């Protein structure tokens, strides 16, 4: 397949008559890493939730590998099998061990044998430095460890697209780097990802393409260097200037 892996076409979403997305277009090629930046409330998270069918769009369409996933007859469960999502607040299942968190979907949704799923989960844990945490419960882990487990849990279903919704925003600064490390490794292994993030340095470092959202409109998109060095839109420039200023404080 040569077309985009994900195509967002003129998507609108309103909450209680308040428009959050106002005609967003976006293409994501296979193996591409796209970072969504923009102020809080600009629609980054809503866009990700629409792609994962956690929200229904009010207009427009979203196509995953050519299939219209916004079609009312499309099965959201089938769509989510092909997409992994990681949340800002980790959302691990507190009553399950780390290993059970990771193997739940492979075993129950993808019907893989339990032993095989567990074997694979252990390998992923080992690869990301969490081999000794397989039997622990989430509340015994640090925030950074929990978020890494959440990413592994999303990866364990072998999705063709990974959505990351401000995955470092709830973390202490010294824990952010360990989560970024795992995302960088996923990029190197060729994972297609869309990230909403407030970490500009990280976005610049990891993104193939950066998209700036403002008030529900995708105002500007381009290679990371261009967006950060020479943004075309005055509002992008203004946003980046304010972010940089707050960093200096």
């Amino acid at each position, binding site marked *: 397949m040569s077309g985009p892996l994900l195509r967002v076409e003129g998507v609108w979403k309103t909450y209680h008559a308040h428009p959050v997305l106002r005609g967003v277009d976006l293409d994501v090629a296979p193996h591409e890493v796209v970072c969504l930046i923009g102020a809080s409330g600009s629609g980054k998270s809503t866009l990700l939730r629409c792609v994962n069918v*956690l929200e229904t769009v009010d207009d427009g369409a979203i196509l995953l590998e050519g299939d219209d996933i916004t079609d009312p007859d499309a099965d959201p*469960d089938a769509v*989510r099998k092909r997409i*992994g999502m990681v949340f800002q607040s980790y959302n691990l*299942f507190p*009553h399950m061990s780390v290993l059970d968190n990771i193997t739940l979907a492979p075993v129950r949704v993808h019907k893989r044998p339990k032993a095989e799923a567990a074997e694979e989960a252990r390998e992923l844990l080992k690869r990301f430095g969490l081999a000794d945490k397989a039997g622990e419960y989430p509340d015994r882990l640090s925030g950074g460890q929990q978020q890494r487990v959440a990413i592994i849990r999303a990866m364990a279903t072998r999705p063709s697209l990974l959505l990351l919704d401000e995955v470092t925003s709830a973390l202490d600064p010294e824990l952010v780097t360990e989560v970024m490390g795992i995302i960088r490794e996923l990029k190197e292994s060729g994972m297609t990802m869309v990230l909403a993030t407030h970490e500009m340095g990280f976005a610049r470092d990891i993104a193939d393409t950066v998209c700036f959202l403002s008030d529900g409109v995708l105002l500007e998109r381009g290679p990371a260097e261009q967006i950060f060095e020479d943004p075309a839109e005055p509002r992008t420039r203004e946003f980046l200037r304010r972010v940089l200023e707050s960093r200096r404080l």
Partner: protein
Amino acid sequence: MTAQAGGGAAWVKSERQLDRERRRRRAGVRSGSVAAASTVLCVAVVVAVVVTSPGWPRVHETFFNWGEFTGAFPDVLRGFWLNVRIFLIAEPVILVLGLLVALARGLRNPLFFPLRALAVAYTDVFRGIPTILLVYLVGFGLPALRLQGIPDSPAVLGGFALVLSYGAYVAEVFRAGIDSIHPSQRAAARSLGLSKTQSLRFVVLPQAVRRVVPPLLNDFASLQKDTALVAVLGPLEALRQAQIHSAANFNYTPYLATAVLFVALTVPMARFTDHLAVRAERRRAPGGGT
């Protein structure tokens, strides 16, 4: 607390800390002895006042008659075994019924709308009817229909009335537990591809059930007592036996014997509930668990 290996010198308690600990110990001993002394004094005063009051001999005769107690106790105890059996059979049935009703109320598929409406109507109606009224309705009303297959044992009918009444309460407890699980848990489960049913079964319900164990035990302590309501239908359970003995000599000690048995059953249950609550609290605390 032990000093971390490699981090700083080994910890030797300072003179200041030792003095603090000595004073804390002394204060502990002091408050312990004050509590003991004041308790003994209070009990002594209450006993003295009660025993020397003019009505005491009659109270003693009517409620604390040892002869009556030993005379009635074997029958009351035998009757109490029926209460325990009603309770033991009703309890699991109530749990299953309550859970099913709570799940039915959560159904969103339009196909199941009648089921959902039925569940709402059931909880509304049966939580509103006084339990004793329900016992009369079921215990006397159902057999009066003279339909085939309706059991004629008053204990079974009474147990059935209790199931109807408590099923409604327990359904609400389960529903509260399910509602208390944060929507982000469901979102996480769905985002992994789990269906609605799978999310409920593997993610929401296990957490919800754990959360509602203390209120459920509370309802069951209440159910243990309410097995005595079946007495109005006439089976020879504890309260009925006490009534019979009491009516023979106009003495109320048999009732007291019955009360003792019920308390002996509910108090351990209450302590167990407390124990679970404390454990849950400890688990929530930072560094808790195990």
